[in-house]
């Protein structure tokens, strides 16, 4: 594994993406130190003030304030924390469920494969946006609920793509050899099959992170994401959409934040796909 991963770290795409992710992740991690204000602190005397550099701006609020007089920069920084938490845990959760089922289906085949395959089919006949909205109705708002909803919707992406890869790997002679050496099924999957499917798995995780960031923003935008007390980019957009003529810059900043984060994860995924030589014909959106 050292070889291909080392190669990936020399790809400019991967390096640029990792640099961007490190910056955003740094903001998320050290939000309490970097942010000039408490993200929930309301200053009703200076609502919708423009960025500090434009006329009428207040140097105390570098990027201006929102409709409740909360500091936009601080909310952006804390919003990064929400986005990164969702990206990390939602993609890992979806990866675990999806890849466990994919390895079972692809390795054992037969009836298990059929059942898991039909489950994926039915699941995917729900458009993802619709399914996540319906799940949020049931789960209620909150960070962990958003993560759970994304996991429950997106495990199929992993399952479908990985299953066929596992089937191909399982046909290799060294897998049969492992069985002949007396490996149990479990040992064979973990020691022989998994290392071969790992590059695809890592690539899918980085692409899923981009999707998770967008879905979290969408759910928060609609008002069904994290709670109202937790800053999120989607909420900032929904708020700015209402006062778009008074303060257009408030709409711009969270859009740019989402765009940069999504591009970083997609660039990472693309770079990994190229360097790890992953066949990725169709992932779906």
């Amino acid at each position: 594994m050292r070889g291909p991963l080392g190669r990936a770290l020399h790809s400019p795409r991967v390096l640029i993406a990792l640099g961007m992710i490190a910056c955003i992740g740094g903001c998320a991690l050290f939000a309490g130190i970097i942010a000039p204000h408490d993200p929930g602190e309301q200053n009703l005397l200076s609502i919708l003030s423009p960025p500090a550099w434009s006329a009428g701006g207040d140097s105390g609020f570098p990027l201006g304030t929102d409709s409740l007089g909360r500091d936009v920069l601080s909310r952006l920084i804390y919003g990064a924390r929400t986005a990164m938490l969702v990206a990390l845990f939602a993609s890992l959760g979806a990866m675990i469920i999806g890849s466990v089922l994919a390895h079972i289906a692809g390795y054992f085949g037969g009836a298990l494969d059929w059942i898991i395959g039909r489950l994926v089919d039915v699941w995917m006949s729900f458009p993802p946006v619709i399914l996540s909205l319906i799940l949020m109705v049931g789960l209620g708002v909150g960070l962990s609920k958003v993560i759970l909803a994304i996991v429950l919707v997106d495990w199929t992406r992993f399952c479908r793509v990985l299953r066929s890869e596992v089937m191909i790997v399982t046909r290799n002679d060294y897998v049969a050899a492992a069985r002949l050496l007396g490996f149990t099924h479990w040992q064979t999957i973990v020691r022989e099959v998994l290392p071969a499917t790992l590059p695809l798995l890592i690539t899918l995780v980085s692409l899923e992170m981009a999707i998770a960031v967008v879905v979290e923003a969408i759910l928060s935008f609609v008002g069904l994401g994290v709670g109202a007390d937790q800053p999120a980019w989607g909420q900032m957009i929904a708020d700015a959409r209402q006062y778009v003529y008074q303060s257009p810059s408030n709409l711009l900043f969270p859009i740019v934040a989402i765009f940069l984060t999504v591009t970083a994860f997609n660039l990472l995924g693309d770079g990994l796909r190229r360097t790890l030589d992953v066949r990725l014909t169709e992932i779906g959106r």
Partner: protein
Amino acid sequence: MIATVVQLILRRLLAAIPILLVVSALLFGVLRALPVDPAAMSLPPNATIAEIEAKRREMGLDRPLPEQYVIWLRGALHGDFGQSIQLRRDAGSLVAATLPATIQLAVAAMVLAGLLGFGGGLLLFRVRGTVLEPVGDLFSIVLLSIPEFLWGLILLFVFGVVLRVLPFTGQVAPGLPVPHITGFLLLDSLLIGRLDVFASACRHLILPAVALGLAFSPTIMRVLRSSLFDVYHEDYITQARLRGLSERKILLGHALKNAALPTITLAGVQFGILFSGTLLVEVIYSYPGMGNLMVDAVRNADLPLIQTIGLTYCVVVLLINTTVDTLYVILNPKLRVR
């Protein structure tokens, strides 16, 4: 030929029935598992417990879940999807009133996605081997990574707020009449002979349709380009070149025809995904379609309405996929013989 196609459509539709049954049962199960009581919600807050119990019995909520599902399914098959709790109107007719607006948006976006996708794909193919190739490559990756949600916001910001050239709220300028004949505003405004309404509706459709179209064009672009690459390895391209045909004629007259088939199939599959993408674009642009109705229903935990809209999205997507499968057989002579 016609008999084969009819048979094929029937077979596909039959195959869709079990999926629909499972999907509707799942939808029903998930929504009934929620900690929300539709009976209590449809009564005023000062209703007594006895009144709520009576309402529960009236709505059939005291029966076991499978029985409730069968009752609901029987109603749905007769076009009765229950009452919206929030709006106190028949859920089926609420969906029927908003579906045309959503279809209008989806079709406009698909046409745009197709034009942009084919145009961009041809362009990407034309610049192969030149210095512009990596530029085009990077460009298409950036395009691919921007979802419709972001496109919607970016276009709203640039054209609606900064340049102020296009409207970005609703489907027609306030004050203009909204005729209801077929439900498709573009068509209805022409039917009543109001060109001003038609023009306004067109202007309001531009940003949402472009946002959605832009999000789905890069996939079409990339598939067209890679199928053109495949086609160019075929002998008939070399032969056309030997016959002295111009590059332009080879590309448009020979290669495109053969590369179009896989691209159209993919575009069809994309149309299914695009249709559900209308939801977000509608919310961003306050466009009065099914997506906005869904989000309102979800915010108010309006279970009968959520169930009806959710099912409608699934049915439309299934129908689109069935149609695409059939079209594929009609368009591909190799599959027709079977």
